[in-house]
C-alpha cells in the first residue's frame, strides 16, 4: 500500500484499477445487492434534493388516451377505495407505453388523483412492472429450483443469447411461475409453455416475432391433469 504522502500517479492508479477490476471480475459489484436482489432499488442513484416533489398532476394539463382513462376509471369504481386500482392501472398503462415511463406514471396519477411518487413507490416493488424501458414482448424464463434442476439456467442463457439483438423482446429470468410440472418452462406474453429444450428456442422466438401463438403443442392450457385417477371414462388421461 502506498502511503498518504505519495503523490497520486497515473501508472499507480492504472495498476490499482487493473487489480481491482480483475479481483472483481466475475463477481457481483460491491453494491450489487441493490441491483439484483433487494426490493430497495435506487439508493445508489443520485437524488436532486433541491427539487420539490411532484404534485398530483393537473388533469387539464395531462393528455390521457381515452381507452386508458376508461379502463382505469372502471377499475377504480370496482373497489371501495379507488387506490386499490393502482396495480391494474399501472399494468394498463404499461400495456400502452411499454413500461412505467414518467409519462405513463403521470397519466395514471392524473386519473387516479395520487402523486407520481406514490405510483413509483408501488411500481418499483413489483416484478412485472418495468421501471426502465423494456421490449414489448415479455419472455419470463423460470429459473427457480424445480426448473433449474431440469435445465432452466441453460435455457435462459440460450433464449437471452438468441434474443440479444432484438430490442422488442424482453427476456427475464423469473422466480417460480407456478408451473413446475412443465419444467423447464417460460411465460411468453403471459402464455405458459414447457417443457422446453434449447432446441425449441428458435421457433419460440420466431413465433413471438411473427405474432403467432407460441409453441402451440407445448402450451400449458391444453395439458391434462397428471393424476391417473382424475379423469374417468371418455376424458383424456395424462399421456406421459
Amino acid at each position, binding site marked *: 500500500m502506498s502511503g498518504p504522502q505519495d503523490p497520486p500517479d497515473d501508472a499507480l492508479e492504472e495498476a490499482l484499477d487493473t487489480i481491482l477490476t480483475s479481483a472483481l471480475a466475475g463477481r457481483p459489484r460491491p453494491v450489487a445487492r441493490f441491483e439484483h*436482489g433487494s426490493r430497495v432499488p435506487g439508493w445508489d442513484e443520485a437524488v436532486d434534493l433541491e427539487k420539490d416533489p411532484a404534485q398530483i398532476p393537473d388533469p387539464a394539463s395531462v393528455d390521457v388516451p381515452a381507452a386508458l382513462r376508461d379502463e382505469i376509471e372502471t377499475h377504480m369504481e370496482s*373497489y371501495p377505495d379507488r387506490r386499490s386500482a393502482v396495480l391494474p392501472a399501472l399494468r394498463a398503462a404499461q400495456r400502452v407505453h411499454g413500461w412505467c415511463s414518467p409519462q405513463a406514471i403521470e397519466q395514471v396519477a392524473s386519473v387516479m388523483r395520487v402523486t407520481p411518487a406514490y405510483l413509483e413507490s408501488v411500481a418499483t416493488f413489483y416484478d412485472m412492472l418495468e421501471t426502465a424501458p423494456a421490449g414489448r414482448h415479455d419472455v419470463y424464463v423460470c429459473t*427457480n*429450483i*424445480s426448473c433449474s434442476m431440469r435445465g432452466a439456467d441453460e435455457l435462459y442463457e440460450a433464449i437471452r443469447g438468441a434474443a440479444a439483438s432484438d430490442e422488442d423482446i424482453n427476456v427475464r429470468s423469473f422466480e417460480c411461475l407456478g408451473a*413446475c*410440472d412443465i419444467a423447464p418452462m417460460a411465460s411468453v406474453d403471459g402464455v405458459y409453455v414447457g417443457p422446453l429444450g434449447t432446441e425449441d428456442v428458435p421457433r419460440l422466438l420466431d413465433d413471438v416475432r411473427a405474432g403467432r401463438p407460441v409453441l402451440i403443442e407445448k402450451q400449458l392450457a391444453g395439458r391434462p*391433469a*397428471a393424476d391417473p385417477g382424475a379423469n374417468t*371414462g371418455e376424458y383424456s388421461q395424462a399421456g406421459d
Partner: protein
Amino acid sequence: MAATATPKLLLADIDEPGLHTREVYERRGGYDSLRAALQMSPEEVLRELEASGLRGRGGAGFAMGKKASFLPKGAMDKYLVCNADESEPGTFKDRELMQKTPHMLLEGIVIASYAAGANRGFIYVRGEYDLQADVLDAALAEARAAGYVGEDIFGSGHSLSLVIHRGAGAYICGEETALLDSLEGKRGNPRLKPPFPANQGLYQGPTLINNVETLATVPVIIRMGGEEYAELGVEGSTGTKLVSVSGHVRRPGNYEIELGIPSREIVYGLAGGPPEGREVKCWFPGGSSAPVLMPEDLDVPYDFDSLGKAGSMLGSGAIIVIDDSTPILDVALKVAKFYRHESCGKCTPCREGTNWTVKMLERIESGEATPMDLEIMASVQEHIIGNCLCVLGDAMAMPIGSMIAKFRDEFESHIEDARAKRGLGDAAASEVALGAQGAEESGHRLAAQGTGAQAPGEHAGAPGTQKGGA
C-alpha cells in the same frame, strides 16, 4: 395402488370439456351446495365446516371453520379474500383448479362468505396467471348473470360483490397481510400482527382470508356433510389434498391424495420416483420453505402433524424431489437467492440475512470459504428465525438450516474442493485468528435441532478441516 383409489373430490373428471362453463358445471350438480347452504343458517354452515376438520391449504394449516367463525357479528362491511397468489416454489395446484373448475371456487367463496357474514369478496390472483384470471373473469360474469353472485342471492338476503384482482409479481403478496396492503394499492409489505385480519384486515374491516384449494373444498363439504368429510384422511388432517410434485420425478404434476398416506406412495407410486438409475437425495415436503427431509423419511405419513414431527411441514403441499446428481450447494443457493429476491426489505434480519446467506454460499462456490463460514451461516439462520415481522425470513432460514445440519459433510468437502481448485490451501490454516467460539456454539445448537443428520461414516471432507480443527 392404494393412493390412486383416493376419492377425487377436487380433481374428479377435471378435464371434462367445458367444465369451466356454468352449463357443464351445473350439469354435474354444481351450485347445488350453494342452494343447500343458503337453506341453512350461517351458524349451521359454520358448524359443518368446523365438523369437517378442514385445515387451510395455503401454508399455515389453520382450521378453516374456526377462522371463519372469528369474524365479528354486526352490520359493518366484512370482507372475504381468496388467496390465489400461489408463488411458493414448487406449488401449482391452485392454478389447475382455477383454470379447469373456476365455478367450484366461486361456489365455495359464496358459501364461505355466507357463513362468515362477508358481503364483499376479492380474489387476489398472482399477476403471472393470465389464463387463470381470464377464465375466472368469464366464470364470474356467468355466475353474476345467474344471480349466484350479487344482491340477495336466491332470495336469502345474503349479498356478495366479488372482484378479481390481478397482482403484479411479488411472492410476499401471498402472505396474508402483505396481500391486504397490495390489494389496497400499496407496496406489499406485511403488517404487524395482531391485530389479525379477522378483526382488522382489508380497509381496516374484518376479513377472512383463505387459499383457493381451501375454498374450493367448501362445496364438497356441504355436499358430503362435515362429518363424512372428516372420515377421510387421518385425525388432525382430514380430507383429501392436492399435492404438486416436481423436480426429479418421472411424472411431475398435481395428485389428489387422502391425507396420511405414506409420502413414498406419492413420490414413487404416483410421481414415479427419480429417473432411471438415480436415487432421492432429499425432498421438500411442503414447498421450498419447508426444511428438507431425507430418503428414510419417505415413510412418514403425508399429513400436517406427522410431517411436523419429522422436523418439517406440509406447507402448501408441494413436494420437490432432489436426486443424487444434484450438489446440495446448488439447491441451497437457488433457495437462498429466491428469498433474497423476494424479501420485502422491512426487517433487517430478513433483508440482510438472506443477502449474507447468498454471499456466503457464493463464497463456498468460488472457493473462498472456510468451514467457519458454515458456522456463521448457521448462526445467521438462527438469528433470523423468530425475529421478523412475517415468516419469509424463517422460510429461508429453516430449509437452509436443515441443509447445513443434514449435509454438513458435503458442504465441507465442497469448501475444500473449491479451495483446492482455486489454489488456496488448507482451509483449517486460515481459520486461526478468527476464534469461532460464538459462531461455533450456535452452529452446534442448530445442528442438534436438525433431525436425521447424515451418518458420520459418510464424511468425505479432508481430515483436520472439521470446525474447530484449527
